[in-house]
């Protein structure tokens, strides 16, 4: 079951001009920690029903994960998340005209990153409505020298999505992710475990006086109830035991190769010139 985390006052912002929910996080915190992010959501993000909804419904729209898996092999994969959006029953009295988007905030574990330029490209292709990566998005650093990042994706649910047909709406989000070079180990693979994402529904309502923007959040505990599968990515890692052998043979082969070229250069660099013939 999904439940509302908080019901508070709504922000009065024009339709979908609002920035990303998680964007201000990295202005306040230097790195991504689960506890800090929870704290940030509780303090900085206004969640809840808008005034216009308050006397019509008594719960937030239901957004749930029903399938989550990693697609592909190797260092470049896609994290697929299927979300079901349940509409209000017919018993709900008529809601004002509104427009909604589903928001997924994916906190990536250490050792995994999303390429912001790839997300930009997907935006241009119209795959997402809005998407951005925040935090340490350096594409080149290995795990040991990098911090965690998060990705926020907005998907269009459509106008008057809270009511309408009886059937719910299913959304599938595929996020391209890449593995960093993991820390060295002894068993050859590094285990990366993904947590559950945060799910939000944001609806804009055209009121008589002004537009209203409401954000609802679905908690991850319920999401886990629907899909228990823990996602684990095993990334190949360098083996510490190889260090001495690799260093020795690397330098030996460099020295031997260089020496053989040097010797051949010294032996075979006689210049055949007209001057020689004359002398």
């Amino acid at each position: 079951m999904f439940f509302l985390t908080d019901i508070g006052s709504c922000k009065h912002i024009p339709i979908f001009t609002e920035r990303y929910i998680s964007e201000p996080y990295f202005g306040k915190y230097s790195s991504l920690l689960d506890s800090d992010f929870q704290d940030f959501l509780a303090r900085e993000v206004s969640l809840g029903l808008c005034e216009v909804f308050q006397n019509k419904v008594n719960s937030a729209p239901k957004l749930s994960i029903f399938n989550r898996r990693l697609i592909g092999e190797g260092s470049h994969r896609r994290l697929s998340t299927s979300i079901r959006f349940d509409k209000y029953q017919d018993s709900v009295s008529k809601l004002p005209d509104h427009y909604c988007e589903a928001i997924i905030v994916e906190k990536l574990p250490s050792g995994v990153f999303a390429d912001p330029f790839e997300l930009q490209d997907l935006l241009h292709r119209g795959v997402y409505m809005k998407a951005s990566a925040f935090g340490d998005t350096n594409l080149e650093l290995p795990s040991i020298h990098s911090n965690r990042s998060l990705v926020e994706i907005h998907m269009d649910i459509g106008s008057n999505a809270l009511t309408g047909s009886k059937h719910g709406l299913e959304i599938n989000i595929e996020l391209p992710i890449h593995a960093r070079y993991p820390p060295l180990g002894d068993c050859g693979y590094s285990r990366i475990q993904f947590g559950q994402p945060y799910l939000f529904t944001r609806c804009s309502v055209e009121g008589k006086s002004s537009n209203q923007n409401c954000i609802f959040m679905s908690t991850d505990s319920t999401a886990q109830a629907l899909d228990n599968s823990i996602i684990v990515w095993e990334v190949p890692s360098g083996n510490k035991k190889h260090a001495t052998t690799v260093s020795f043979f690397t330098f030996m082969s460099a020295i031997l190769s260089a020496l053989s070229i040097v010797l051949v250069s010294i032996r075979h660099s006689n210049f055949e010139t007209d001057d020689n013939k004359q002398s």
Partner: protein
Amino acid sequence: MIRIDFRSVILFSAFLRIFLIIYGEWQDTHMEVRYTDVDYLVFSDAAALVVSGVSPYKRSTYRYSPLIAYLLTPNSIIHRSWGKVLFSVSDLLVGFFIRSILKLQGVSDKICMYSVMVWLFNPFTFTIGTRGNCEPIICAMVLWIILCLMKGKLVQAAFWYGLVVHLRIYPIIYALPIVLALDPCYFQSGKKPVLRKWSSGAIKAALSSTTKNVSERVHKWGVILRLFTKERIQFGLLSGTIFFLFTAIFFYLYELEFLHEALLYHLTRTDPRHNFSIYFYHIYLHYEQEFSLPEKLVSFLPQVILQLVLIYRFRKDLPFCFFLQTVGFVAFNKVITAQYFVWFFCLLPLILPWSNMKLKRGLLCIFLWIGAQTHWLLWGYLLEFKGKQVFMYLWVASLLFLAVNTFVLVCVIIHHTCSPLFKPLEHVNRTKSTKYKQWRPG
């Protein structure tokens, strides 16, 4: 037998490149795997930032001179393929320069044509320009510098040399051989250098000849004595000024970001991710701790010693020296990516007419080189795209690739007929020979 002329070769090459650029557009739109090089997207993003008045370094992973972004600004104004056209034109220009250099050296039309075709129809090179890699511009500039030196245009050569080092740091390895080539015996301001002409007979004769170059002994002393000549100082000052001028301008415009991304990054780059270099796994295995100074020096030593020996032995045969230096530099570098191979591919046609390598041996070298690369790519694929723990195999494949590079380089050296680029200037030669007679011991 069908007679192929240079015009037809260039036209066919141009059409092939136009076709590939158009095909690339199609593949990018319709297929999951892009034809366009990821670097091209980086250039284009950086160019778009320049157009909007922002620093190109706001695009992460843009690690080039701002000039590349400036050149690609029409990408945002005219068409996104502008850069690919520009790089492909440079690629064709390399073909023109190869022909011009060989013609100046008196190489026959037939050999000239084969050499040009080795560049223009090399699948490695024509895809690199059409995929949007900027290396053909650098190749064209390096060949243009050789051409300028051959024509005695010292100021032009110095200007372009300063610029090319600013654009891509690696041509700094050519500084010493160029300076040494500006020997007053061969090269004087206001005088056109006399080029040694190619002849197929000379190559055959050289096979059996082991005559010791007597004048070489004189030259060993001469290198030190004649180090500071007007031409050398002129070249050094002018190219240095151009390099520092561009560096200063862009430092003024983009501050430390430019210095860090376009210069310092390349000088200090140690990439732990898999690449063709033998050092990649060693770097990864030690990445958690800082490398000590002796460790850094040891990894530089083979590369530095090799460069110095190659310059010392082959400096007079300038294109050959450039080729060997580049192969050596790439093979022993701490990071090797496939695009670096173009750096020596553009010099290969310049040395082919002087090679007496038999076709069988030549093909063996080609197959071994491609085989070692394919072998590496196979393990690289298993690691990157299948997620298999094959670091050890991949590292062994890197060692094999170095061994093959060494073998090929040794074969090229053994089968090359060393021929100085310049002939001694006549009157200088006369004066020198008088001095030589006076100096010669015994």
